């Protein structure tokens, strides 16, 4: 456990970015622990090597390959956005055109019969679209207006006065007693 803590603290210890008391603890541990001392040396060596590393230009072929990959990835990112948007737009435009065509076909292929034209001339004061919108009700308007009364007819034979109802109850209880 002590070793793990010490090794975690090694970079800060080497950079001198550590509180004095903590740095003393690390130093004490390094004097008694061979493995941690070795890790300390290896880290120092790595830093030294990094400092002497020379910046070499990569071979032209690799550089071009990396650059082309980056450009390709950037393009792909745009394609990923553009394709779904374009597809959605195409669908919307397609559907709109299809419905417009259908409406156009309906209007051009179905000439109005003679009778409605006569009717329109006779009844010029009505809005045909409004009428068609409510046609399902207007067709049987009178029937729907009478519906409550039609249903009520079923109740007529059943609305005897309280005396009759009492008589019925007595009669049924008498029948039960007799049986």
């Amino acid at each position: 456990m002590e070793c793990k803590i010490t090794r975690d603290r090694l970079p800060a210890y080497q950079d001198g970015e550590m509180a004095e008391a903590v740095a003393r603890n690390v130093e004490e541990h390094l004097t008694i622990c061979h493995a941690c001392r070795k890790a300390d040396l290896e880290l120092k060596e790595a830093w030294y090597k990094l400092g002497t590393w020379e910046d070499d230009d990569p071979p032209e072929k690799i550089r071009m390959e990396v650059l082309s990959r980056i450009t390709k990835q950037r393009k792909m990112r745009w394609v990923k956005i553009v394709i779904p948007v374009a597809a959605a737009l195409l669908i919307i435009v397609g559907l709109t055109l299809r419905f417009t065509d259908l409406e156009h076909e309906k209007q051009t292929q179905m000439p109005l019969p003679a009778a409605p034209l006569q009717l329109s001339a006779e009844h010029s004061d009505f809005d045909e679209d409004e009428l068609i919108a409510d046609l399902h009700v207007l067709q049987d308007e009178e029937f729907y207006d009478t519906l409550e009364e039609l249903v009520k007819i079923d109740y007529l034979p059943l609305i005897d006065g309280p005396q009759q109802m009492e008589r019925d109850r007595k009669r049924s209880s008498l029948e039960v007693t007799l049986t």
Partner: protein
Amino acid sequence: MRWIMVFVLISSFLLLQAGYAFADEARMSRNKLIWESMSAEEKKRVIQNYREWKTSAPERKERIMRNYREFNGLSLEEQQRLKERYRQYKSLGPAGRDRVKNRLDRIDALPADNRLEAEKRYARDREMPAHERMQHLKRSRFWEDLSEEEREIFKKLIFIDN
């Protein structure tokens, strides 16, 4: 996760709106087809209804729409029975219809208790076979009060399925 929820909510809302729009569109197309296949006479009758409808009080419109919805919620058998009753009712002529209306006014004047009792009886009555219902009807005070002519009228209206 939050974005998925937002997406699902917006999609559901849009789908619902699209559903309503589609149902409206389908009803409109169906109505248009019916309208175009109607004879000139039928169209005149519907236009007359439309004019009455336009000038009707909002309460009447509301009642008609409510009845339309209730009628469409009934079973096919019940719908046919009411349509047939309506046909009989129409064939009675103004005098016959007035007689029926006078009798129906009694129901509106009923106290709540009696009305409830009548509804319970109605539920029981619907379960009975036709001949038993006829017996039951003949025993009722309502039947006793009717004239011969009225009895003929109500037989037609009540025993549609015979």
